[in-house]
């Protein structure tokens, strides 16, 4: 019995292989599994090569996994285009279309001998069921259900749901194709059969992706205004707002460009409303000027950057974590801007709510660094209990303060009560130009110094928070991992594996990337002799930011590479073993003593 199954499927767009993945993950949710699905495509709008990975497990799924347990290839040309995204190794079961004419012992996989390879007449079965060779995706689902014992009723229900709005004949035909797949699997058993442990339904589960849950979190947090511009891979955030925000009395604007997108959101915030925009790297570059305007006018604003491969147009459909420098440092002048990063679909909700709380409390723009993988991967996760969240509103002036209102009054905390149009007595002019307490333009060096002090030191309290960091593993371990964003999920699994293999390791995941709480890192690194900062960027951007801000142990190295080269838990574990060996050679206690 296995409790974790990684399935990778590839074909061409017309085959509906990704739809099959969606039916499958839908079924997983109904059956009580946790699951995660990622998709990958060629650059054609439709009909190009397409693939998906579904990982299902009884317990929470932390990342898409490494090598495939099952590889399904509807044709080899398309399958191979996905390279390292669909890694086949000696334990993989390969199911492929018989009509590709490839012999099971002559697969076009270089240097790899899968555990078992079956040429399956998927197209024929599809033709029998549907009259054409469409419907292969349902055949594939039947094979998976038959071979692994994944709940048939649930998958059939998933098929029904997917085709519900279409012709009833489509539903019938697909159900038939599914049945044929199951039959085939039963008639052609595997040499080494594998069954997936049945899931235990333990509470309601949600099926959603990072973009949708980000938008839902924003509305939950009280965001009543969104404006933005379509850009892959963030557009779904805006689209969610266009369907839902009206129901809560909110408004959404698809602006004419990225700059108008952030401009309109800032206007709404000036008006006293919680507001958000979302984009990817190229859009962030355009939005930079108005981000600075938000900082100097001290207005709350949440800016979501769903990172993709950069620089410039880069790779719109691939994740990367190379916008950290930009999030922290861009926009001219002395600016401190909080930067948060979720690590998975579930905590995208938490992080987005927190982003609004921080934006409101500190009266500042806040950047949320998601990435294409988290944003567009579907996860089956436990329903989030919204009652455990507290929502923060910006500090508003009371009657006494309004009697002689100074918008940028210097206060001990650096935070001044902020009015908004419509509030009698709170009239002020917000401006990008440097200003005195009243908001009048100034070019005085003394006032400018004081205002910079205010704008930057108001974050001292945020800098001191340690609740936005998660430390897991052996607290006094000499070996460490630091990771953020989607890579954190890989490291969490690596931590579990390495610990089970006898290594003493700990992991730090910062949710607040900037400003940096030096104390948290110092305490974490106190016992550390070797470690890796694992992230998806050529430059290893968090590693460099940490080195800029604090002293890191000399044994801490950057383990980073460009996007579209995903990390796998196993390779992190291998790295940890290498480092442990190195430490041992330097006579330290990296390994637990054998009992």
């Amino acid at each position: 019995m296995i409790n974790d199954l990684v399935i990778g499927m590839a074909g061409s767009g017309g085959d509906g292989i990704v739809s099959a993945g969606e039916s499958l993950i839908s079924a997983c949710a109904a059956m009580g599994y946790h699951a995660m699905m990622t998709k990958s495509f060629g650059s054609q709008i439709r009909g190009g090569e397409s693939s998906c990975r579904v990982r299902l497990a009884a317990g929470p799924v932390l990342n898409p996994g490494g090598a495939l347990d099952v590889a399904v290839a509807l044709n080899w040309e398309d399958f191979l285009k996905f390279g390292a995204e669909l890694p086949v190794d000696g334990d993989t079961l390969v199911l492929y279309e018989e009509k590709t004419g490839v012999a099971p012992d002559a697969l076009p996989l270089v240097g790899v001998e899968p555990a078992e390879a079956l040429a399956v007449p998927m197209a024929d079965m599809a033709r029998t069921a549907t009259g054409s060779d469409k419907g292969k995706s349902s055949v594939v689902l039947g094979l998976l259900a038959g071979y692994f014992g994944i709940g048939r009723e649930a998958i059939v229900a998933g098929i029904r749901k997917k085709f519900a709005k279409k012709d009833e004949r489509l539903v019938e035909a697909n159900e038939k194709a599914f049945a044929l797949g199951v039959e085939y699997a039963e008639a052609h058993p595997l040499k080494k059969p594998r069954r997936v442990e049945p899931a235990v339904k333990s509470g309601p589960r949600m099926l959603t992706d990072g973009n949708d849950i980000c938008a839902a979190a924003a509305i939950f947090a009280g965001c009543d205004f969104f404006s933005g511009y379509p850009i892959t891979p963030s557009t779904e955030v805006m689209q969610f707002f266009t369907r839902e925000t009206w129901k809560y009395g909110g408004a959404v604007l698809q602006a004419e460009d990225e700059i108008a997108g952030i401009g309109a959101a800032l206007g709404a915030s000036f008006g006293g409303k919680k507001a958000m925009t979302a984009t990817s790297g190229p859009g962030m570059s355009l939005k930079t000027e108005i981000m600075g305007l938000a900082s100097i006018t001290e207005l709350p604003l949440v800016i979501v950057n769903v990172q993709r491969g950069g620089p410039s147009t880069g790779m719109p459909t691939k994740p990367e974590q190379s916008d950290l420098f930009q999030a922290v440092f861009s926009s001219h002048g002395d600016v401190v801007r909080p930067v948060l990063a979720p690590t998975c679909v579930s905590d995208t909700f938490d992080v987005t709510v927190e982003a609004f709380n921080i934006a409101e409390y500190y009266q500042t723009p806040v950047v949320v660094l998601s990435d294409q993988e988290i944003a567009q991967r579907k996860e089956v996760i436990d329903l989030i209990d919204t009652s455990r969240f507290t929502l923060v509103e910006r500090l508003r002036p009371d009657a006494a303060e309004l009697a002689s209102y100074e918008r940028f009054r210097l206060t001990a905390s650096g935070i001044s009560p902020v009015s908004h149009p419509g509030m009698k007595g709170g009239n002020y002019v917000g401006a990008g130009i440097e200003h005195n307490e009243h908001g009048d333009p100034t070019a005085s060096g003394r006032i400018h110094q004081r205002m910079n002090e205010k704008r930057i030191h108001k974050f001292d309290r945020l800098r001191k928070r340690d609740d936005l960091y998660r430390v897991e593993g052996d607290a006094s371990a000499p070996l460490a991992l630091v990771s953020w964003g989607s890579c954190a999920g890989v490291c969490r699994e690596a931590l579990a594996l390495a610990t089970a293999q006898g290594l003493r390791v700990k992991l730090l995941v910062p949710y607040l990337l900037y400003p940096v709480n030096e104390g948290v890192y110092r305490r974490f690194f106190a016992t550390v002799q070797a470690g890796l900062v694992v992230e998806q960027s050529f430059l290893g951007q968090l590693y460099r930011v940490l080195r800029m801000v604090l002293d890191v142990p000399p044994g801490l190295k950057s383990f980073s590479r460009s996007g579209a080269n995903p990390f796998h838990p196993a390779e992190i574990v291998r790295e940890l073993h290498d480092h442990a060996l190195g430490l041992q050679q330097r006579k330290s206690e990296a390994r637990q003593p054998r009992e």
Partner: protein
Amino acid sequence: MNLIPSLTPKDFKSDLKPIWCPGCGDFGVLQAIYRALAAIGRPPHEIAFISGIGCSSRIPGYTTAYGFNSVHGRALPIAQGLKLARPELLVLAAGGDGDGFSIGGGHVPHAIRRNDDITYIVMDNQTYGLTKGQLSPTSPKGLHTVTSAYGSLENPVNPLMYVLAYGASFVAQGTPADMPGLAAVIEEAIRFPGFAFVNVQSPCVTYGEEGQQIKAHKAVMKHLEDLGHNPGNRIEALDKAQSYGQALLTGVFYRDPDPPPTLGALVHERQQRLMAGAAPRARILDMFVQH
């Protein structure tokens, strides 16, 4: 809505002393705005004045309304976001010809076609005054400036024709040389339900040519009303607008006799319809639950 009949122009004048050069046309525009706002009667705290960057964009600070002096060319998107989020406010936007038709040019057609109830006042002086007199998009061809030492080789933008062609429902032009006329078109523009555009020939006394100054306006300006213009006809308005740069025509070029509903009205209607029976925010995740 809270109207105060006893408001005077002085109620809209802030204590901040303008940095504009004496003789600047913008002083007249400011006075006309005080007059218009006093006539309309919304109190200053219910008015928000959004501007970009430029001499003319300093104008919000010289009124007692809420103001937002933002970045170059971006007044319109900020004003639209504010108006969508807070439809009950009176929202004005202002800036110069460069702010509006050069860097901000991409925002103009969209603000017009969205048609929210915003009034946009452009102080058109055919130069970039704040930065010392460079060529602007409305500078006439052949003009010598610090960035056109041998004379501009470019044809100027015709802001009136652009705005009319983009479909604006209210387009007018004024000059401080005719203060009552200017105050009247600004008031009418603010009252107009929908996006309203007022171009003001507001000369730069420091960098402008002699022929562009207020005294020169007085000599050449013609009122559209006196010419028998029919402001209900967009084609006629476009025809009159062609003379921009050669003649100074003031008054209302175009006023839609049957203005369409504003964006705010349409949004309100949609919200009312969709809010009925919506679940509370705390239950927003229910839509993702799999059964």
